[in-house]
């Protein structure tokens, strides 16, 4: 048993699956960090991911063009984000409840659209999913190469985004504007930054990330759409945002740990280890809660989070 676990094929599979399973969570966490840095909590994430999953899947199913599927999933995410922007930014209703409203609405809509398009066949329809793309030379390195450099294009894309989002937020002028809007919208307004427009733009970018993250589940991880395909990964991304103290790199680290536990559970099952698999499915969520306990006291929440910006209500 132990020998099997320590073998190269097992470890390769485990590392490879860790990167794969953490991809949608990293992508969603990056999106949520951008949004929350601008002062909006988007609890619509879970529903937006599900909607991205279904739109990506149905587009690919009907056109056979998987990249069009990814694009439409991103577009679907942006559309839902605009609804969130209208409610939470321009009208300024409770961000908590508006986000939950988006999630409830988008979850219902996803199932509605799927059933309407596909009907209820006995065997759910499938698409030809993304296949891993090995990177020449690098993928020949034992263990590291065969696991890290033999991934889906969307996974590479996600890993490129991590430094990009970091640099954007902390090293560029627009990034500074986003953080100021989230930290002190009144100050931002004073120096001529359009607070609501900045927040809307962040919601749009984040929404596109959520949509693509959702589509990863139906276009790469699996090849069909199931009702619980997102299974709380959106909520995990919210947790990782806090765990990472609104920093993309630490948030990614958290997402990797979650992905590792997810992958370990899958790999051990495929080894035929007779474990109560629900117990294993539970552990990542439990550890996420425990991790939050560790960091929450020290967390530095963007000061403008949850507060609608209304010029007349300074200090309100």
């Amino acid at each position, binding site marked *: 048993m132990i020998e099997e676990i320590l073998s190269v094929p097992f470890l390769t599979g485990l590392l490879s699956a860790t990167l794969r399973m953490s991809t949608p969570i990293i992508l969603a966490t990056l999106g949520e960090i951008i949004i929350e840095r601008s002062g909006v909590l988007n609890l619509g994430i879970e529903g937006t991911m599900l909607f991205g999953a279904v739109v990506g899947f149905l587009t690919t199913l009907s056109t056979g063009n998987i990249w069009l599927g990814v694009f439409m999933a991103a577009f679907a995410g942006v559309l839902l984000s605009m609804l969130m922007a209208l409610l939470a930014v321009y009208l300024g*209703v409770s961000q908590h409840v508006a986000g939950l409203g988006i999630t409830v609405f988008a979850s219902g809509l996803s199932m509605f659209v799927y059933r309407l398009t596909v009907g209820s066949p006995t065997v759910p329809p499938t698409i030809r999913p993304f296949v891993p793309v090995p990177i020449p030379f690098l993928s020949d390195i034992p263990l590291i190469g065969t696991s890290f450099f033999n991934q889906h294009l969307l996974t590479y894309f996600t890993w490129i985004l991590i430094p990009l989002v970091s640099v954007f937020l902390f090293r560029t002028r627009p990034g500074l504007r986003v953080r100021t809007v989230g930290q002190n919208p009144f100050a931002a307004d004073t120096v001529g930054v359009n607070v609501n427009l900045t927040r809307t733009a962040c919601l749009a970018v984040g929404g596109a990330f959520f949509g693509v993250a959702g589509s990863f589940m139906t276009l790469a991880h699996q090849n069909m759409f199931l009702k619980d395909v997102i299974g709380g990964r959106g909520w995990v991304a919210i947790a990782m945002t806090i765990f990472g103290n609104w920093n993309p790199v630490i948030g990614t680290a958290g997402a990797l740990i979650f992905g590792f536990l997810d992958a370990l559970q899958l790999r051990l099952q495929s080894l035929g280890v007779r474990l109560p698999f629900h117990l294993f499915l539970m552990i990542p969520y439990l550890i996420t809660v425990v991790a939050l306990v560790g960091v929450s006291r020290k*967390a530095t929440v963007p000061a403008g989070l949850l507060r609608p910006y209304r010029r007349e209500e300074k200090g309100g």
Partner: protein
Amino acid sequence: MMSMNIVKREPLPSWVKVLIPFAAVLATLALAAIPILAAGGNLWKAYGSLFFGALGNRFNLLETFVKASPLILTGLAVAFAFRARFWNIGAEGQLYAGAVAATVIGVYGTWLPPSLKIPAIMVAGFLAGGLWATIPAFLKTRFKVDDVVTTLLLNYVMLHFVGTLLFGPLQEPGSSWPRSPQIMKDAFYPVLIAKSRFHIGIIVSFVSVLAVWFINDKTVFGYQSKCVGVNILAARYGGINAGMVILKTALISGGLAGLAGVGEVCAIQYNLIMDLSPGYGQTGVVIAMLGNLHPLGVALSAFFFSVIGVGAQTMSRMAGVPVYITGVMEGIALMVMLVFLLLTEYRIKWSKS
């Protein structure tokens, strides 16, 4: 170019607030026409079959009450927590906690005297749901952990815990399905109206409405709970132990959701399964908001969503609109209600910029 501003408005008379949920329901029905028409449904036929399917004859009407009972309880659970600004989005998990307790006692509590079985199950279900909800409340008050995230994540922990039990110690012997053995006959909730499923759990939910109403309006604790929700710093300054109030609020909130789980086990399924709840916890959030966090409002809006839930089955058969329209309508209702509530306090001012 026109720019939109949101400005405070003169306070509206209080009867307007009472009418708001009804206006939201009408707006929801109007907006839901879009997906119904998109599904190729005839609008009159769709809504006709929806309401007939839920209210049209004796059996359907009683079924609507059956379905309303867990929704009232999860709606109350969320409303009671939200009133104290304890963001309990975990009613689903708390429901399952109550269901697990009900199943364990219902299956193994053979030593209990028959007349005590149902009371014991209800107390255990309430406590299980309540204690499960005090975990995020404790983490919030002690470690400042965000309650939205923990209550959401603990839903999945509970769901997989139920899975662990149903594939393990609680699995029906000899079955390969993830389901528990049936509970004992004298743990079944008695049916009150012949040839229906109208059971005492429905009365339990009605009594809970009155109990929460009483706690809110007539007890010191209800007042303290509201103070903590309105302004926690002022509440502390006024000598209220806010942490304790939040813990107690969570206990009652989770307990109510736990009772919903008890009802599903003891009156509907008679055993524990993975799919015990089709998302009653999530719908509870919608119900609480549509009911303006008031117990009577919760009861009415739970009934409304029960009508939609039961009627959607008929609508699906008669007008070909997928039953998932219920989720779409829940989401629309929640968002419409939010906007309407905002418009009672603010008005939109357009100005040239």
